[in-house]
């Protein structure tokens, strides 16, 4: 008996008899000979639980996790603390193992969680309508541009170069399918170039896409962009880190029509990039063209309050080729983690944690920028992340500096040259509530030494 099956020889005999066949093989008669595998599957034999666990442990130990170093790596996913109640609730059978709530009478738990999640996302983003999750942040950006296209049928979208590179690349990939032209708007001194945007706006622009804070951690002036876009009837899509929304203005209050983003910072693990969740919020008028599940409130036959999946006529299982999206399975459990986290954080906590990140980020930026050979990438206000320029001689040298820091037990951040040619000497440093002043001071120490060593090595090379 393998594969968590339960049938004994007796069971099998009784069952085959009831079916009226001789053997299990007979049940596969319908598969034509020409397409049969005709040999055993070429995979190793199964192993006991203890052996499989040991192997997974071996693999885990070959990774350097955020538990193993002091990490300032962010660039889209962040080392935030996940409170224990999130794990506990996400692992309850009742939340972990059901399917999408197709039978609402026995799914009120999951449905109400979605309703609460939607409420929280709506509060954070400042928009009245949220769906119950999409895959992740970048795919949410792609989905938002698709929705814009469905809404106004215009030919192109303008996307800020400050939007996460993965979001931009996902947008490019998907836009080829639904036939939207993607035009990039450059950065100027760390933030999206408003003039360049204005120059690119026209009546065939479906949407303008910004990120807040942008990939460099800088705070964008969302309202100005929204005003500009609105003049041309373009929708404004804003990707945002929800955990900054205790201190940063809600894009929905600043004119954004769609607010989307990556939910990992809300109680989800790093998990090497997934699963987490994407969120997707919109103004009222777009409710019937949103992608994904939406939970709605209603009453039962006796008048009790209850929740259902609503507006399903948007969805693929009802509307098929006319659906507003193809999404089916999304990230419900991760969204549960999100709303539990937000409940734990609470109305005051969301402000406090934002303020803490803001202050520590400022401290870190000033401390690091005062080191010989290091300067700020730009002077714009930042929150939770910021860019530096390392005067070490370009992208390869930055990589070597990072390696030197890693030896000292510090992951100094993300080498911007991996995604931005123009910032080959750039380093992106993320600061969460997990990084204390002590950690930051340690980073300063290690980074200072690494930069100095790299510069010394470079001048030695020049001298030689």
């Amino acid at each position, binding site marked *: 008996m393998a594969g968590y099956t339960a049938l004994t020889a007796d069971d099998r005999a009784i069952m085959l008899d009831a079916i009226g066949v001789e053997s299990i093989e007979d049940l596969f008669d319908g598969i034509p000979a020409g397409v049969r595998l005709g040999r055993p599957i070429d995979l190793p034999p199964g192993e006991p639980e203890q052996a499989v666990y040991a192997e997974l442990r071996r693999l885990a130990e070959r990774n350097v996790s955020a538990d193993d170093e002091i990490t300032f790596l962010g660039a889209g996913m962040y080392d935030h603390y996940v409170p224990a109640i999130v794990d506990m609730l996400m692992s309850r059978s009742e939340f972990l193992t059901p399917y999408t709530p197709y039978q609402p009478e026995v799914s009120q738990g999951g449905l109400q969680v979605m309703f609460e999640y939607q409420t929280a996302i709506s509060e954070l983003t400042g928009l009245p309508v949220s769906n119950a999750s999409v895959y992740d942040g970048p795919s949410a950006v792609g989905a938002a541009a698709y929705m814009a296209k469905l809404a106004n049928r215009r030919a192109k979208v303008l996307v800020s170069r400050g939007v996460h590179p993965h979001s931009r690349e996902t947008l490019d990939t998907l836009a080829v399918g639904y036939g939207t032209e993607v035009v990039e708007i450059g950065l100027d001194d760390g933030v999206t170039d408003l003039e360049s945007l204005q120059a690119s706006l026209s009546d065939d622009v479906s949407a303008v896409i910004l990120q807040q804070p942008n990939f460099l951690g800088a705070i964008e002036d969302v309202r100005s962009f929204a005003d500009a876009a609105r003049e041309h009837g373009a929708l404004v899509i804003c990707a945002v880190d929800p955990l900054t929304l205790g201190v940063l203005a809600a894009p929905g209050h600043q004119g954004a029509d769609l607010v989307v983003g990556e939910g990992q910072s809300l109680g989800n693990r790093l998990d090497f990039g997934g699963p987490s969740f994407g969120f997707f919020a919109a103004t009222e008028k777009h409710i019937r063209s949103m992608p994904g599940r939406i939970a709605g409130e209603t009453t039962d036959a006796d008048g009790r309050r209850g929740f259902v999946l609503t507006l399903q006529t948007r969805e693929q299982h009802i509307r098929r080729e006319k659906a507003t999206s193809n999404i089916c399975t999304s*990230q419900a459990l991760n969204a549960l983690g999100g709303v539990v986290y937000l409940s734990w954080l609470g109305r005051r906590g969301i402000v406090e944690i934002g303020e803490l990140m803001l202050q520590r980020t400022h401290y870190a930026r000033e401390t690091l920028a005062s080191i010989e050979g290091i300067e700020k990438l730009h002077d714009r206000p930042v929150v939770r992340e910021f860019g530096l320029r390392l005067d070490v001689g370009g992208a390869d040298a930055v990589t070597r500096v990072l390696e030197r820091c890693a030896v000292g037990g510090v992951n100094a951040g993300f080498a911007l040259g991996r995604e931005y040619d123009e910032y080959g000497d750039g380093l992106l440093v993320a600061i969460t509530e997990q990084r204390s002043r002590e950690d930051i001071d340690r980073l300063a120490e290690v980074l200072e030494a690494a930069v100095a060593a790299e510069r010394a090595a470079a001048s030695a090379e020049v001298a030689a």
Partner: protein
Amino acid sequence: MSSLDHSQTRQQRERATTIFEKGAPGRRAFRAPDLDVPRVDALIPEGSRRAEGPRLPEASEPEIVRHYVNLSKRNFDLDSGFYPLGSCTMKHNPRLHERAAALPGHSRLHPLQDPRRAQGALELMFNLQESLAELAGLPHVSMQPSAGSHGELAGVLLTRAYYADRGEQRTKVLTPDSAHGTNPATVTMAGYEVVKVALDADGGVDVGDLRAKADESVACLMLTNPSTLGIFDPNIEEIAQIVHGVGATLYYDGANLNAVMGYTRPGDMGFDIVHFNLHKTFTQPHGGGGPGAGPIAVSDRIEPYLPRPQVVRRPPAVNGGPRTPPTFDLDHDRPKSIGKLRGFHGNYGVFVRTYAYIRSLGAEGLKEVSEVSVLNANYLLARLRETCGDRLPLAFGERCMHEFVLSGAPLKKELGIRTLDLAKRLLDHGFHPPTVYFPLVVEEALLVEPTETETRETLDEFADAIAAIIAEAEEDPEIAKNAPYTTPVRRLDEAGAAKRPRVREILPD
């Protein structure tokens, strides 16, 4: 005067209140770390500073825990009962997988960690790609898609890229009537026109119709095999010939792979692209609607277009200095790639679980999965046909693969009981109902998939419950029509919900 209404359960008696209605102003669970750096004012420009914070809940940790624990009890779940939801493969979710995925080396690994320091994760992904390639019978795998429909989108975009690269203009994608809704929806999103292919009398693809519709304008045929009717298409070879004959690609919707492992593979059947639903065949818990993962396997000709980055194994370096690429690496250098479908590398946490599952079962175990899932389905079918075959006949044929579709049409006609009523009454019996009203080609459809992890006793109990409900309906159809009675809420007004959508809690200022 009783202090309680005994005609209701406690859950029924209590009004559902959200976490936003609980607690009180000033309550909290979180405690912020002390500010350990000098405070600086006005770090945020005025216009970008939030004036009033979002109205998140204000509750103590005990209140939050109780709220969600009690909410959880308003869910039916697989760990508590039989969940024969057709097309969804609700098989047992081993807890080993949760334990393994939670190891900090996996769960606390940053996706942008230097590949040299993420060798375990990359090795796992690489090995998993190899395993999935073997199961698909197709050599190349991308782990990036996050669900079945995401895999479909990847697949159709790959097809598009393939033709674009060849300079061919194709505009249509064929799908049979029995296709899952995500298939046609995907086609539209990928900018193709959907053309439906009819089914033949046995529930398979109507080969004549296919032949008529297949021409040079067709980019792809998307197929599930066994189909959503639980039938393995006997003409699969001919179908593949026709599709390939016009130069189109063949896409395999892998949602039903659970039926055929060890017997046949999409690649063996001629498919070019296949997605896996790791949350079905490979037992990632469904989480009430995700997360899942929908990796794809493709043939050589599609490979150049796969999403970026790919996980690769590099040949061992000759002079392994610090600048040598690591053994397992991310290959971003894919000029013809369609690009990215999402951030980072896909739902890695799901991969850990799938990896554990494949290692636990091995080659033989995976074959046993398919064998027992088919045996269980046929046994349950036999039991149901024996006791209520006339009221609830099998839609097509005599037997099935891992799932089967019954038609509730006679029940409706003869007793006025709809499939929905039957489903709701099953809730009172403690069972999750099968999938209802899908596939669309069967009137009053009931799609039943027991999976391999259920016992014979459970199948018997389920068959008995169906029989009891039908017997009950023969006498008094009203009972089923008003079911359920014992659930936390009773039948819900879905039309009302859609008419005036209330999709968030109204909060006091």
